[in-house]
């Protein structure tokens, strides 16, 4: 049975010019120990769909789904209190901007221990020990001293490691990583991705990796969902997606990679759309 499954997810925002559909009927499934990548450009609804799952969208958003099951529990019928017990503990999320998603007013140690206190009801000493253990796990040197640092005293890569430490603090079953390396240098990106994959393999987590970087997809994913303008364009395992992309959009996306440049100029997606080779139909 799938660890997490969602069917026909729709997210709408009310705007001055009528409702805007950010996510339009997306269905996803993640098994235990599986890494699912969601790829798409900005505005494709990839982050919004995961924020909807986490219940982090503002009240102006209308979220509906035919089915949303996590680990045998129906997320749709849960009351908010029960939901909060799952979110953050069994389902955790790593956000895109490490510098912006940590609270600048509290020390890193406080922010990690907050999760432990809230979800696992640990005592003070126990929390402290676990926080040190977590920082060591994500590869921060001098973890004991670092606990009393504020986010602004750390680099972007270190902040991202702290975010990861917070996310895995309760041994989640599902980890959602929303562009975890976009703000980072390639060398740091490599370290963070290696760390995530290592943790995923060790803890047997299911993982959803949201990204727009095809290289990151190629390096991490088992299965890939390609999204465009709120719709699912294609779903395939990673090898067949790169070897034999089914939808025209995926093909266009792969062709736009500078790695694959053959001639003098890169093919662009809008160019391909004008040529009529592109139909945004939902792949099933």
């Amino acid at each position, binding site marked *: 049975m799938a660890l997490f499954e969602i069917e026909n997810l729709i997210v709408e925002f009310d705007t001055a010019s009528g409702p805007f559909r950010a996510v339009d009927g997306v269905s996803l499934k993640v098994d235990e120990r599986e890494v699912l990548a969601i790829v798409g450009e*900005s505005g494709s609804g990839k982050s919004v769909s995961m924020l909807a799952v986490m219940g982090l969208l503002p009240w102006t958003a209308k979220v509906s789904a035919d089915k949303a099951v996590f680990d045998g529990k129906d997320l749709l019928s849960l009351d908010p209190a029960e939901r909060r017990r799952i979110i953050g503990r069994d389902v955790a999320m790593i956000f895109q901007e490490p510098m912006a998603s940590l609270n600048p007013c509290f020390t890193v140690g406080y922010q990690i221990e907050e999760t432990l206190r809230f979800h696992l009801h640990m005592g003070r000493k126990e929390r402290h020990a676990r926080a040190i253990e977590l920082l060591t796990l994500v590869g921060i040197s001098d973890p004991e001293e670092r606990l009393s640092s504020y986010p602004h005293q750390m680099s972007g890569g270190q902040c991202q490691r702290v975010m990861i430490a917070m996310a895995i603090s309760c041994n989640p079953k599902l980890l959602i990583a929303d562009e975890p390396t976009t703000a980072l240098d*390639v060398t740091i990106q490599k370290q963070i991705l290696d760390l995530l994959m290592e943790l995923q393999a060790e803890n047997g987590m299911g993982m959803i990796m949201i990204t*727009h970087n095809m290289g990151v997809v190629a390096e991490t994913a088992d299965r890939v969902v390609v999204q465009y303008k709120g719709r699912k364009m294609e779903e395939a395992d990673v090898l067949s997606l790169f070897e034999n992309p089914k939808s025209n959009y995926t093909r266009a996306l792969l062709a*736009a990679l500078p790695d694959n440049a053959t001639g003098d100029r*890169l093919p662009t997606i809008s160019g391909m759309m004008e040529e009529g080779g592109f139909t945004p139909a939902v792949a099933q």
Partner: protein
Amino acid sequence: MSEIVVEGKNIKRDYAVPGSLFKPARTVHAVKGVSFKVEKGKTLAIVGESGCGKSTLARIITLIDPATSGELDLDGKKVDIAAGRPTPELRRKVQIVFQNPYGSLNPRQKIGNVLMEPLVINIDMPAADRRQRAMEMLVKVGLEEKHFNRYPHMFSGGQRQRIAIARALMLRPSLLVLDEPVSALDLSVQAQVLNLLADLQDEFELTYIFISHDLSVVRYIADEVMVMYFGEAVEYGTRDEVFSDPKHSYTKTLFAATPRADVESIKARLARKNAA
């Protein structure tokens, strides 16, 4: 041998960090003696991680900051802005496009005024001619004349970067410094902007200094590559030399860290995973 547009000889830049009651003052050597030269119509790419001094070097080349020591030649003439403000003629030779198109445009300034401002400051020119030139430039970078009176927030990231490029080209510079111009853009938009840069380079015989940390972009656009590490140029050569035979260990690390999106490397990774 063709004309050298820009040449740097042993350029250094130090920043003084003031001390306090508890800390003594110290000096940060941001750029430690970098030399380079670029021929007309070519692209030099500067690669390195954040904090390696590549943006500091860009500011020196663009005549924003003076170098602490070393020599910078533009069109064969020595330039020293520490001795005096650069003249309008000098300003017209070098322009820069910044990384973040959301931060580099004034939100309260209409696009037309964004484009005309460099002309107002540096060239004595009638208003009608300025307007004419701004309109032509808008079309050239793939926008339309109707965009002239709009504000930056009405544009997407890719369009804004086109505006930033248009602004940089208004003075018809011979050298354009591009500080990570596509790193904030989506893949498909990135391709469009890279194509635009290639078209403009052909049309105006522009020389580019292209700063990036994305090696796949660098491999696509550069003629020559310089890899910087902690303020030093650890590798400098033609694109093919650097990519086929990296000498310095940092360059090798950089290549190894770049994610690969080809079928063979995916197969290799899956095989490793199944074996484990």
